[in-house]
């Protein structure tokens, strides 16, 4: 596609957060967060409940403003005042609840708020672009003229991801994209994430599911109680990750594993 000309080469730095803190009154939701996202890379953001993942996503989506710290985007310092500012800059977000209009068809949802020819909607052109986009993602949507209400959960997720790509963003953030999906649909979405990465976008993936994270992530950034708690790769073991997330090597997960091993008499 022609738009790919503006795409950055794989490995180029797209986004850098330094010392980002966010306070809600007396509560420090984020403190001194460092995060880098490169082009053509999937960065997984993991952490327990209350680790600050969602707050960080909202800061990047322009929903919240950081209390202190700087956000550098494509080498320039930026402020994300509101959601549309983030969109304009090229940071797209797929929210957990997808935010689709069930009464409208796939084409209308993809182009919602960004319709071609506002005074004489160009349905043909929009439909063609919708098909092109969905085909690039190898998405399996039977018809783009059906209302969203008739689609399955995985298909809706696909539409939501496709919509975030419509404006050709540099970075796409996915908040728990597989939380509500079945096995096959999860695999589809993971494929989709890899295809998006291969197109040269930077991807930020927020997930509770370690299996999914390890399947697609290039780097795994762990947050704990609003702070950075290490950067891992898929080379690290599951135990190391869990230890970083929970903050101790002796945690409920490791104790549970140990108990199970004992029960099967497999203790070494």
């Amino acid at each position, binding site marked *: 596609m022609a738009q790919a000309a503006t795409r950055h080469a794989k490995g180029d730095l797209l986004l850098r957060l330094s010392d980002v803190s966010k306070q809600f009154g007396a509560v420090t939701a984020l403190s001194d967060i460092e995060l880098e996202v490169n082009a053509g890379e999937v960065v997984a953001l993991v952490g327990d409940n209350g680790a600050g993942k969602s707050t960080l996503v909202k800061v990047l989506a322009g929903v919240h403003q950081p209390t202190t710290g700087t956000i550098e985007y494509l080498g320039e310092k930026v402020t994300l005042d509101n959601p*549309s500012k983030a969109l304009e800059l090229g940071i797209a977000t797929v929210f957990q609840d997808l935010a689709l209009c069930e009464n409208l068809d796939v084409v209308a949802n993809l182009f919602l708020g960004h*319709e071609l020819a506002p005074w004489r909607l160009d349905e043909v052109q929009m439909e063609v672009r919708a098909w092109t986009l969905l085909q690039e993602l190898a998405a399996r949507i039977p*018809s783009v003229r059906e209302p969203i209400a*008739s689609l399955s959960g995985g298909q809706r997720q696909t539409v939501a991801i496709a919509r975030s790509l419509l404006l050709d963003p540099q970075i796409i953030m996915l908040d728990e994209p597989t939380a509500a999906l079945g096995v096959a649909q999860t695999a589809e979405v993971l494929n989709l994430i890899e295809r998006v990465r291969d197109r040269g976008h930077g991807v930020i993936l927020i997930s509770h599911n370690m299996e999914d994270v390890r399947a697609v992530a290039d780097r795994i950034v762990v947050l704990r109680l609003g702070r950075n708690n290490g950067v891992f790769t898929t080379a690290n073991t599951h135990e190391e990750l869990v230890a970083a997330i929970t903050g101790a090597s002796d945690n409920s997960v490791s104790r549970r594993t140990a108990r199970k091993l004992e029960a099967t008499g497999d203790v070494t």
Partner: protein
Amino acid sequence: MNETAPQKQPATKLDRADARVRDDERIAGAARIFYDRVRSGDLGMLPVIVGLLIISTVFSVLNPVFLAPNNLVNLLFDAAAVGFIALGIVCVLLLGEIDLSIGSMSGLSSAILGVLWVHLGFPVPVAIAGAVTMGALTGLTYGFLRNRFEMPSFVATLAGLLALLGMQLYILGPTGSINLPFGSPLVRFGQIYIMPMWLSYLLAILPGIILVIGGLRVMKRRSEANLSSSGMNVVVLKAVVLTAALVFAVYYLGKGRGVPWMFAVFVLFVVVMDYALRRTKWGRSLFAVGGNAEAARRSGINVKRVRLSAFVVCSTFAALGGVFAASRLASSSQQAGTGDVNLNAIAAAVIGGTSLFGGRGSAWSALLGVLVIQAISNGLTLLNLSSSLRYMITGAVLAIAVIVDSLARRSRASHGRA
């Protein structure tokens, strides 16, 4: 993609590539789509057609005058004013909001017209502009209350109903009624002006021609873009049926006085509104906000502005409806816009297929629904029924319309249609 090899057309259309999609082309395909829709609760215009058939059968059995050409001409004269109000309420219903003050707004507007024109001696256009401006201001107020204070529109407009009625009584003063000059063009427009027959016939065949030409153009563009289209047979069939129906209607009305200009103007506004709702970004955003306001907001749509615009359009059309009603009755009175005007307009939109739950509807629903409502009202008048009975029957019709809407909505939900 395709741009690189335009000479080599792939065998399958872009939107027919998936094996799960049935190839619904040609007339049989269109018929199948229609059948599926109705079964799953997407009733479209079916209730209107069934309703009109039942109404005309019952009333013409009770009183043969009902189907007489001149009675139908009168019916169309009467339908225009309520139709305008219904057309406005469609915008607000699409958002899932409601405006209960449209009746009072039309009454106030007719009062403003009377006072400015007859009492204060302003020219008619200025008086109309005054009335319409009042409508726009009222809509702005509702939009502001909804956006700024999150006031539910049903409460805000219920308050507005009283306030506007009060204003209407206040400016009409103790006499309570102003007669508009009979010889004036505005009153003749509401009572006498009839379109010449040649023009009526011309306008009757125009939609068919536009349908065919537009259909051809869309087909050409879609096949160039490698998309499927419904096929020429379907378009031609639609055009032929539509043209036959319209020409017959004009012929039949022509046996009486003919097609009222007032109704033609109303239809013109319906066509414009239909375009605005279906083919503009504004219309699309109305549907989006009605379907899922939060999703619309996150897509970058200014939800508050969309809401404001819908309320303004609604009240403005209600004011225009009031002007039409005044010209039809040749008076501005304390009774204008009271009684069943409010609910008739809302019922018309709902019967025509606009959902009270937001996100579904069309401009045509105002036209079709108002024909049903007006046919009932006209038939009951012919039977010399008292207004007590008329109110009860209209109330029952509205209840039935809302029940049909709710049931259809439930069925759509279970069939995976929004």
